[in-house]
Every structure is written in C-alpha cells, then in structure tokens.
C-alpha cells in the first residue's frame, strides 16, 4: 500500500544558490509552507533541517497535521532540479554571413560559443578551436541551399570538421546545407558523441527548430532551466494568460515565453537559455564591465568594477549588503540587457500578460526593486503584471513528468509561488515638458487621481490581493498596447503597487556618471519607498 505524503520538498540546486521549499497538504490542497535560500556550498541537509524546524516552531499544529517534527524534514520526499554549467560549442561555417545566424542560434540555446568561418580563420586555428578540450559540441552549418560564397569552401570545411571529429565524444550538428556532407564523418554509429542533422539557422530569427535541437542537446533531463520552461507552460495554462519567465542565474539567463492553447490547440513554449546573460560572467570584458557601470550608482572606475564582478563570480553570496546589493542589481540589469539582445524574437511578440522573475540574482533584492530592474531593461509599451518566483519552486514543479499532475500542482500552488510585484503600465510616445494627462484608479475603497508627467515614475499604492480599474486620459495619442488617448486597464496590486512608468521607451540615461547615478538612485528609492519621482 502506498501512503501519499502529506509534505514534500522542492529543491533547486543552482550553481550559486540552493533553494529549498517545504510544500504541505493543507485543507485539501498543496500549499507552500516555507522556503529558504542559501549559498550553494552550504550543506543541503542542514538547509532542509533548518527549514523544517522553523516551520515546526512557527505553527506546531500545522506541522503536526503534516507529520512534521523537529529534525525529520530531511526524511521528506524530494522534487529536485539542478542547473548545470553551460558547455562550450564551436560554431563554424564557410562564410561570415552564414556564421552569424548560427552563432545567434547557438548562443541562445544553452551553449557558450566560440566561432569562426573559413573566410576569417585559417584551417589550423579552426582545428585548434575544434579540438580544444573545453569544447563539448560542434555546430557546422550552411545556408539551405548553400549560397554561392559558401559552396566553394564547404567541402574543405566538412573534411576539417570531420577530421576534428576524432574527438569521438563530441556531439556534432550538421545544419542546413551541411547535412549533405554527413558521409565525410564515416560510420557515425560507432561514435560516442552523436552526429545529428539539423535545419538551417534563419537570419534575424534565432529561435526555431535548430534552436530547439540545440537546447535539447545542451540541457540534461533534470536541468532546472529545462524544467522552468515546462513550469512556465503549466502556469500559462492554469492562468490562461501569456506568461514570460525571466531568469538571471549564475551561469546563464533564461527566457521562457509560454501561452495557453488557442481554440483547443496545444500550449506554446519558446525557451531561450543564454549563457552570456549570466549575472557575473567568468571573465568580464570591457563591454560587460561598462554595461554594469552604466547601471551602477557606485561610481567606481573600470578596474575596481571588474574586481567586484570577479568577486561576485567567485563568491556570489558574499558582500550582498550596502553597495554590494546595488552592484548586484546593476549586474542583474546588465545581464537582462544581454538576455534581451540575444532574444530579439521576443520583441516581435505581443507583450506578456504576466512576467515572472526568477533566479539567484534576485535572491537578496527587495521585491519592488526586482520589478524596477525588469521594467528598466525589458521595456515595451503596454501594461502587464509582474511577479517573483520568490521560493524558486517553478522549476521543481516543472520537472513533474506527467503534464496533468504538473498542472494540478501548479494550480494548487499558484497563489503561493508567485509574489505579486504589481502592475506596470508603460505608455510610449508622450511629449516631454508638460503634463501628459491623468490617471484615475477606481478601487474598492474609492478613487485616486494622478497627473502624468513624462519622464517620471508615478506610483499608486495598490496592495497585493487587490484589484482596480485604471482609467488613463492622455492629451496626445500614445502607444499603450494599441494607439489611443483613452484607456481603461484592469490592474492588480503587488508589493510595488501600480507603477505608471512614464520614462522613455527605450530608457535614455544621462551620459554623465554622477547624473546617471542620481537618477537611478531616485528611481530605486521611489519604487522601494513608494514616493513618487
């Protein structure tokens, strides 16, 4: 006889953070009892033990109903995912023109990339790159059909790649027109690493079938980022809304766009894993450092900033107070920017109804500051809700293999797993220098009116769990999803309330570091304290 457990643990073992959540059966449904996040080097059993003991101390009767006693949380069943460090893929093509879309696809599909084309790299350097001990996958691609400038070099490229395939543990993907050269690889059945045929990469559209194949190769079955996609899809189905999950982690950034099935169709999911969008890249170059500097209120020179980023990489949980916390948020914004750049296909979709932030980057940030970081970087005209996967259980729930069971679990936990950050309304196209109009928020306890000044952040207190209708009247036609002057939008509350973001889309920051720092600090203060700027 199998006895269904009354409680279980959801564990997300990241490269920098171990997150444990205790989930129990209360009142006929699964509820989040508590959660704890700790640095990855901590003892997992100790984390679970402390989490269980705190639950017992906080509510002994609830703990008793879950058969939870001091010290016995470690015996609970576990639902566990782990994020794995991205591996390196060498991407080669006959021409620079053919190489660019391949790199764009591989870089958003869970692989760190090194690349070169027969045009720009001599065969010895290319062989050295392919044989490097750190390379776990090789992507050799061509247009389909190959373009005139590629055809001449394809034969030699295939011979070179096949010879470098003497490292028989390396997975090789032949994409597009390169598939015709499979015979150069000999008897592929005897290799430890697979030789796979894939479709051609599309210029300007890095997602698609090749990206799906590469994601599948990059992420092991129990990988947290893979599970995050399934979790996002379950969430979209339960809420019947378009959901964007944005993760900034130690080793990569992830973006999952999920939507419910339309007219009885299957739900849709697009998953992008971008290793270059990691919170603190291992070897931050000038571009990375400058980008963090752009968002930093700290005013450090490039060398000191690079030192701090290296320290953040080595010990991601250390120095998280005072200016350490602002550095983290600057690094998170910079990582979000890189994530946005590598996923251009997201800007072609309608804005998501709900954006969920997750990942270690947000572990020590105040919740409203997370919302501000997201809207600072992922700026699109429109209105949307923002939430935080504060206990980091979306990925463990996404790892439940049975889709019905997964949906049932997410349905039970949906109110607990998302900490509502609030609704952000971002109109675009206002004229600066004068009032753009006004907004009246009709809530259950009366109405609040606010003038809308372009360039500012207007904040309206709307606590979590409340909803209201925001009626916007603009002087000029603006873009807010559609173009118009009058809008009535259903808004829900959150830890940051209702934020009317009247700043530029995309955001324009002053060139002078001191002015920029002041402005960033004023926005941060406004959103955390609730005072308008």
């Amino acid at each position: 006889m199998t006895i269904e457990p009354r409680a279980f643990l959801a564990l997300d073992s990241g490269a920098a953070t171990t997150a444990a959540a205790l989930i129990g059966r209360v009142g006929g449904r699964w509820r989040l009892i508590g959660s704890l996040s700790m640095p990855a080097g901590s003892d997992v059993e100790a984390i679970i033990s402390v989490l269980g003991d705190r639950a017992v101390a906080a509510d002994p009767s609830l703990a008793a109903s879950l058969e939870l006693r001091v010290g016995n949380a470690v015996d609970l069943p576990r639902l566990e995912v782990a994020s794995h460090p991205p591996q390196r893929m060498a991407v080669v093509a006959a021409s620079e023109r053919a190489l660019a879309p391949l790199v764009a696809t591989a870089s958003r599909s869970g692989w760190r990339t090194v690349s070169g084309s027969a045009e720009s790299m001599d065969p010895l350097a290319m062989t050295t790159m392919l044989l490097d001990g750190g390379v776990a996958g090789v992507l050799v691609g061509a247009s389909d059909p190959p373009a005139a400038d590629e055809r001449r070099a394809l034969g030699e490229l295939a011979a070179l790649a096949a010879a470098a395939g003497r490292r028989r543990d390396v997975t090789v993907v032949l994409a597009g027109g390169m598939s015709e050269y499979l015979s150069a690889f000999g008897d592929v059945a005897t290799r430890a690493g697979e030789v796979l045929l894939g479709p051609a990469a599309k210029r300007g559209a890095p997602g698609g079938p090749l990206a799906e194949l590469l994601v599948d190769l990059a992420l092991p079955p129990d990988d947290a980022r893979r599970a995050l996609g399934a979790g996002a899809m379950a969430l979209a189905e339960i809420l019947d809304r378009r959901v964007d999950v944005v993760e900034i982690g130690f080793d990569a950034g992830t973006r999952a766009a999920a939507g419910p099935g339309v007219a009885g169709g299957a739900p849709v999911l697009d998953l992008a894993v971008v290793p270059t969008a990691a919170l603190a890249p291992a070897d931050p170059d000038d571009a990375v450092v400058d980008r963090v500097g752009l968002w930093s209120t700290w005013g450090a020179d490039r060398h000191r900033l690079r030192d701090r980023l290296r320290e953040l990489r080595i010990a991601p949980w250390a120095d998280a107070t005072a200016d350490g916390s602002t550095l983290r948020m600057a690094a998170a914004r910079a990582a979000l920017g890189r994530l946005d750049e590598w996923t251009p296909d997201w800007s072609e979709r309608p804005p998501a109804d709900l954006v969920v932030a997750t990942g270690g980057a947000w572990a020590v940030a105040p919740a409203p500051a997370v919302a501000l970081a997201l809207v600072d970087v992922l700026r699109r005209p429109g209105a949307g809700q923002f939430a935080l996967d504060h206990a980091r259980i979306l990925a463990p729930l996404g790892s439940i293999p049975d889709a019905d069971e997964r949906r049932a679990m997410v349905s039970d936990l949906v109110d607990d797993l998302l900490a509502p950050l609030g609704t952000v309304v971002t109109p675009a196209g206002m004229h600066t220098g004068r009032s753009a109009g006004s907004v009246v928020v009709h809530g259950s306890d009366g109405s609040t009116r606010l003038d809308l000044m372009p360039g500012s952040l207007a904040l309206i207190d709307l606590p979590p769990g409340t909803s209201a209708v925001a009626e916007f009247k603009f002087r000029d036609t603006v873009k807010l999803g559609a173009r118009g002057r009058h809008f009535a939008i259903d808004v829900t509350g959150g830890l940051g309330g209702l934020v009317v973001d009247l700043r530029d889309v995309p955001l324009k920051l002053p060139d002078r570091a001191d002015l920029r720092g002041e402005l960033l600090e004023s926005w941060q203060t406004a959103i955390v304290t609730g005072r308008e700027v």
Partner: protein
Amino acid sequence: MSATDVGLVAARRLIAAPIDGVFALAPGDRPLVAAGDSVVVGAPIAERLRDPRLDEMDIPEEVVAQPGGRWAGPPRRGHDRGPGGEYVFDWNGRWRVATGDIADAIESPFAGIVREVRPGTGITIRAAGRGIRGVVALGSPTRGRLQTSASGELRAGGLDVGSAGTILVVGSRVDAETLTRARAMGVCGVVVAGLSSKERRDFVASEARQRAALHRLPAFAVLVLDGAVRRPLAGAVQAVLAALVGREVAIVTDPPTLVFDLPNLVIPDPPIDLVRIRAGALAGREGRFVRAVGPRRFAGGVQLEAGIVHLPDGTTAAVPLGDLERFV
C-alpha cells in the same frame, strides 16, 4: 554551536585530492607519453610547437595516415631526426599536416600517472599527492621550493636572487611589476590571496610578450587563492603552506592548484566551527561560529540570513551567512 547551523555556512575544501592536471596541446604538438605511463618530476611529456603552421603534403598511398597521427619527414643528414608533424585533415587527396621548426619541451611539474593523451587536445596526468585549489592560475605549470616572503606582502624592491628557483607565498596582494621582476630573477611562481584585474591584465600581457620572444625565461605561474581584492590568506591555508616551506611544490594551471607530494605530512582537519569572513567590514577575520540567528536587516536595507561569530578579540558579530566560509 549546532552542527546543523554551521552546515548553513558554505564549505570550501582545504585539501583537494586526487588532482588531474591537464596540459593543453595544439595540433602539431607531440605527446611523449602514453596513457598509463608513470612520470617523474621534470619528465618531458610533450613537445610544443612554437610556430605551428599547416603544410600540404602528398602522402604515399602505402602510408596509413589518419587525423591525429604523427607524420615523420625524411631524416636530415646523419642520424638527425627529420621534421615531424601531425596529420590534421585530408582534402582533395592531399594531407594538411601541422608542423613547425622549433619545439619547446613541456615538463611535468609533478610525479604522477598519465590518464589520457589526446593529440591536439591535451594530456591529463593524475598527480601523486594532494593540493590546495585556487581560483585562477596564470602563466604555465611550474615547480619549485616553497618560500614565504618575510613581510607577508611583497614589493618589487623586496625581491632578491636568493629567491631564484622558489615558489613564493606573498600574502594578500601583489602587483604586476613585482610579478615580472620575480620572473626575471628566476622565481618559479607566486602564490597570492588576491590579484586585482589591472595587475592581472598587465601580467598576462607581459607573459604573452615573453611567449613571443625567441629566448624564453623558464616557466612561471601565479596562483591566486581567493579573488581580486585584498584580503589575507585564510589561517587554515597559511598553516598548510607553513608546513610546506622548503619543500618542492608545483603549480598547475588547469585546474588552478598548488600540488605537493608529501604523504607523511599530516594536515589536521580545521575545527568544525572555525569560519572565515570573506567580505564586509570584517573581511579576512576568522572566528568561531556560534549559531544561526535567522534573517537580519543589514546595511542597504537588505534582509539576509545571519550567524553569530565569536572573534578572537572576545567580541561577537552578526554576519550574513553568505559572507562566511569554512574549510573542510
């Protein structure tokens, strides 16, 4: 102190074992060892081409050439070995062979057993001995007698030729000028707690120039144990290094490790409650972990899980658990 509470502090391994050192090879480099071979300290394990190039060759049909195999050119006058190279790939009936005129010997800085040899990729050797892991090692694998600098922090002017042949432990931080001077004076390597990005960049540029030079200096490596900012070496690490003074040690760059082969050296486990503060106002100090106290509000309004640490001066401090580390 409860063992569960201290388990919340991130653990760092004091001594690593076994250590599989990787020596990268490029196409054309010639491995001199095979998997399973036993190597001694200083044994040549490969020849690295200084100026590799790809030549096109007509290979006689009776020769069985395959990628990664060795190509041997006709012997020179007398008994001199002819030019050598590595078959890279065959295109249109002609082989591309990686070859070069000058080769440097790569020596194993430690004794061990060859685990794997992959021409064009690398040689992996399992070291006989143990090691202290660092966060990064710059330069090339090296070995020497371990010596500590007198003052704890080394300046360029403080170096003398008496340190030639040694691996110097220089304390909390070092600058690029000291590193290049040390290399020029015959010092084999430097072990340091922190190396800032600027000094690192300058040193790497200097190393690159050295590699490009015709007459090279001997191998030199910098092993960074902690990070990029100034902080003293951890007490537990200092104790091991003190026990190794005067002994032959090696620095390998992949993984970044100080390797020593002293089977009789007993390294006691650090006390279970001994913690080191990595960051913040008390960075570098060590103390005894008393207990975890749950979430606390710290500077900047940040809520973090905290622990009480009893410091040697008799004071106690609430420190974010993320700022602490312990050695196991």
